[in-house]
Each structure stands twice: as C-alpha cells, then as structure tokens.
C-alpha cells in the first residue's frame, strides 16, 4: 500500500488540477484554507479564490449567488461549520433552488483528534441527506476523493462532500476502479453477511473481513461512498444474498449511512441491520489514533457487530 494521504489533501490537489481545466470553478473558504487545503488552489489560481473570513453563513450564500451567474463554486470549511452552522443557508439558498454549489467539508468525524467535540462533526451526513436533491458523498481514500471532486464538477446540482483530516491508506488503486455518483462498489464477496461502509471505515471493513475469515466467517464488503442517492439496488441484492448487513461509518449511528441503509431495507427486505459508528455521544480530545480505538471505530469493532448480526440472523 502506498503512503497514507488525508482526503482533504487529495481534495486540495484535485481542485488545483481540475481548476486548470474547468475555468468556471471558483473556491471559497472561511479562514481555513490551510486546513481544508483549498490553499493549494489559492496558490495556483488566486484570482478565483475568495476568502470570506470567519463568516460561513455569508460564504455559502455568496457561493449560491456565484452559481446563479454560471460559476461552479466550491465552498469549504470544517464539516461542523458547513453542515452544522450553515445548515439553514445550505437548505434554503442552495438546496431549495437546487443550485450548482459544491459544499466541501473537511475535518469530519472524531479523527479530527485533539480539537475535541466542538470540532468533531458526527452529524453532517444526517443533516445533509435530509435536504431534497442534495448529493452526499463520503470518499474512502485519496483516489476516491479526487474522483468524487471530478464527478461533482460534471454533475449539475448541489453536492456535499466529506473529507477527513487524518492521513489514511489508499485502497482504490486497482486499474479497474471507477467512481460514479450513487453507484456503490463491491470490494469483496461473502456469504454470511455484508459490511456496508464508507469513508475511512472501508479499509477497516476489509481488515475485519480478513479477521472474520480466520474464524470461518465469510463477509462481503461494499464501499457505499454515496449516501445520497443511495445505491438501493446493490443494497437489496446484498440483503437478499447474505441476509445480514453491518453498516460502518465515522458518524453518529443516528442519521448517517446506517440510518439510510435501514430506511432503504425495512420496507423491502427487512434483514438484520447492525449499525457501527459513534454511539450517539459527543467526541473528545486526543490523538486521532487513540480516539479511533476509544470509540471502537476499527476492524475489531466491526467484527463484534458482524457477530451480533449473525446471531440475529440465526434466530
């Protein structure tokens, strides 16, 4: 495996790369360009970069205005201040008029680390996916982050992209890798259960699969990078095939991928669904790696949930 790269880093690089091709791209930030990595674009295209200062609500509405006159605005800040603070601006001034604004939020989840609970947004996916027409993507590595940026440039409409601060492994380096909004990627086959994960939990899901295999349990792994629109076709096929689903995400188990999967399956194929994620608590300060262990956001945690799902399946 290649060196670890944070998806925020891949985002900044992708903006700078695609900015050269797509001249309508403009980038806005709220005094966090160094952290969100929009600074990479800023350095290359200063005339198309606008710092809005620490005023996120204005920033997202300015982005809306720019989109109405033909620009493709990428507006960035931390997930907490995008989906959290500016929820209503995004809902009313971007979502309702279905404007072509790309909300690119970094520092999502507890892997933010030392900054602690005020900066660790575990609710963003839940908030964003309740907005009609909003595309919501949580990429699993740097390759996917770049592919998602390119996909939303080509997509006409509002999109929320979630990036992390923590460097993570590259897992999508196969030559066959192809990203399509709303099309989940099956990473591994299995018969006993299916792990549906996104973001940094996809790699952990693959590790969990190996651990389970050593115990004679065979699980499939699906990378559900797009939470909205959800790939219900793939989900239904998995539910029918393995009969048990475990969702895994760096997000509250309320509102995010786990909830989306439950909603999708309960009416059509109600197999056991066990949700792995942040168990409806706030985060705390600490090095990211220690917090990941503390909240069990690792392969071990997924393995435990798979066993719960299997026990329910046997009943």
């Amino acid at each position, binding site marked *: 495996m290649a060196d670890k790269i944070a998806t925020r880093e891949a985002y900044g690089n992708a903006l700078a790369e695609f900015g050269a091709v797509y001249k309508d791209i*403009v980038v806005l930030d709220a005094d966090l360009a160094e952290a969100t990595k929009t600074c990479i674009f800023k350095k290359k295209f200063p005339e198309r970069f606008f710092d809005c200062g620490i005023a996120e609500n*204005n920033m997202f509405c300015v982005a809306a205005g720019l989109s109405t006159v033909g620009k493709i605005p990428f507006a960035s800040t931390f997930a907490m201040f995008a989906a959290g603070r500016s929820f209503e601006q995004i809902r009313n*001034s971007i979502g309702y*008029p*279905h404007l072509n604004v790309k909300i690119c939020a970094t520092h999502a989840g507890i892997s933010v680390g030392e900054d602690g609970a005020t900066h660790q947004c575990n609710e963003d996916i839940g908030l964003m996916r309740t907005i009609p027409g909003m595309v919501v993507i949580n990429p699993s590595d740097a390759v996917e982050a770049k592919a998602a940026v390119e996909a939303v440039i080509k997509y006409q409409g509002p999109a929320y992209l979630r990036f992390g601060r923590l460097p993570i492994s590259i897992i999508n380096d196969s030559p066959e890798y192809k990203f399509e909004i709303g099309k989940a990627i099956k990473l591994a086959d299995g018969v006993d259960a299916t792990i549906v994960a996104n973001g940094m939990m996809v790699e952990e899901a693959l590790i969990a699969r190996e651990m389970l295999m050593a115990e004679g349990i065979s699980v499939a792994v699906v990378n559900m990078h797009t939470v909205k629109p959800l790939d219900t076709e793939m989900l239904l096929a998995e539910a029918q095939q393995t009969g048990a689903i475990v969702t895994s995400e760096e997000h509250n188990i309320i509102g995010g991928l786990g909830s989306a999967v439950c909603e999708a399956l309960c009416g059509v194929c109600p197999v056991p669904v066990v949700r792995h994620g942040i168990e409806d608590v706030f985060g705390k300060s600490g090095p990211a790696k220690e917090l990941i262990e503390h909240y069990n956001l690792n392969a071990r945690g997924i393995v435990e949930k798979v066993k719960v799902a299997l026990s329910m399946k046997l009943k």
Partner: protein
Amino acid sequence: MANILELKKIATDVRIGILDAVYNAKSGHPGGALSSADLLTCLYFSELNVDPAHPEDENRDRFVLSKGHSCPGYYAVLAEKGYFNKSELTSFRHTGGLLQGHPDMKTIKGVDMSAGSLGQGFSVACGMALGAKLDGKIYRTYCILGDGESQEGQVWEAITFAAHYKLDNLCLIIDNNGLQIDGKVKDVMNIMPYSTKLKSFGWHVINIDGHNYDEILKAFEEAKTVKGKPTAIVAKTVKGKGVSFMENQAGWHGKAPNKEQYDCAIAELEEYKKSLGGK
C-alpha cells in the same frame, strides 16, 4: 429618466395587485410589500436592464428581494412588466398556484433568486456582483433588504464582504419602514444609526424618501457613479403606504384584509389612480 407620473400609475396598479394577491390568499405580507412598492416599480420600470422576453440573458441586471416575504409587490411588478399573466396574482399562496408564499426562482419567471429566510438574499446578491467582477461583465446587482431583517448577523457579514471585495456594481436598497412583527424596529432591537454604521463599514450611503420618485431615481444614478465601494440607499418608507388604514401599523405586517377592508383599500387606490389623470 422615466416619466414619474407613469411610474406612479404603475406603482398604484402594483399596490392593487398586492391587495388582490393577499386578499385572495387570505394570508401574506401587505405592509412591507406596500412600503417597497415604489422602490420596486422604479427598479423594474426605470432602472434595471432586464427584458421579460429574455429572462435568462446572462448580461441582464440582477435583482434579489432579500426580504422575500414582501413578494406580493415583487410579483405584481413582474406581472406588470410582463413576466407572467396578472391573473396569476390571485393564485398567490394557493396549492398548485404559480406564486409561492416566498419567491421561488425555479418556477417563477423573472425571479433571479429564491428568498424568504431573512439575511440570506443579500449575501446571494454579493455573489452575483462578485461573479460579474470576475467575468468583467457590466451587469449590476440590486437587492432590497428590510430594516428589521438587518438584525440578522449574516447581514453584517455581507456588509463586510461587499466592502472588502469593493463591489461597486452592487446596490443595496434598505426598505426602512421602521416596523417589524413585534413592533417598532427601534424597540424590538434597535439597529440605528443605519447610515453611520454602513459608512463606517466602508459603504457609500444615500439617504432618501422611499416614496419620492425624484429621489429614488437620482439615488440609482448616483450609485452608478460610485467606484471602489458598494452603495446603500437607505430609503425611509411608510409600512402599508398607499392604504391609509394600513399605514404605519405593525399589525399589517403579515395579515390579509377582510372583504370590507379589501374593498375600502381598492377604492382608495383607484381614487388615487384617478387623481393621477389619464385612463
């Protein structure tokens, strides 16, 4: 410059349209619509470079009604201008009707931005003005903001932003009618002195009587000559203007007239129109 008498006649029709819309909807916001009716009429019939035949022209001037609840007046002006049929006004707020309770750019021809949640439209207008600067386009962006609306913190973010990016192609018009739902703006949460604050934020400020056509049109002209900073026209207005029993009454912010009140208001407006002469 347009014929002021003609503008006054159009504005009176606009006021009648406001009453028609709100009366038939049995809800809506007549007070602020009436206070901004003269400003909107002057914008659409004298100032804005827009053409209802080409509502998507990329070089058109842009307008955002940040105080979106005043849309009965906006709709009436757009109908007068020919963006859609005047008969639509009576479908305002009706299920299946064209005219939503707050402006919807996706369905209503001529509406450049959906608005309604206070404080947001002004920021959107800043984005439109910034876009023009970026592309070297000469279109201008206008925005009507409420005085009560200015209590939103986001408004001051936008005021700072527009000055920082020297948006001299942006003209903000503040409908300073002095009233909001809970009473007088100065009692609810005083935002005065408006002009001093705007000037200290780096804006060019023009104070006018928002019902004096000469002053309105001259202010628009002056705004276009200002370079390097955005312009705010602080228009002193009367909430409910043109319907005597609604004037300066906070209670008419968001209430529809009953049949008797409606008839009375229409009669007053028709009489005024007759006094202007012509047909």
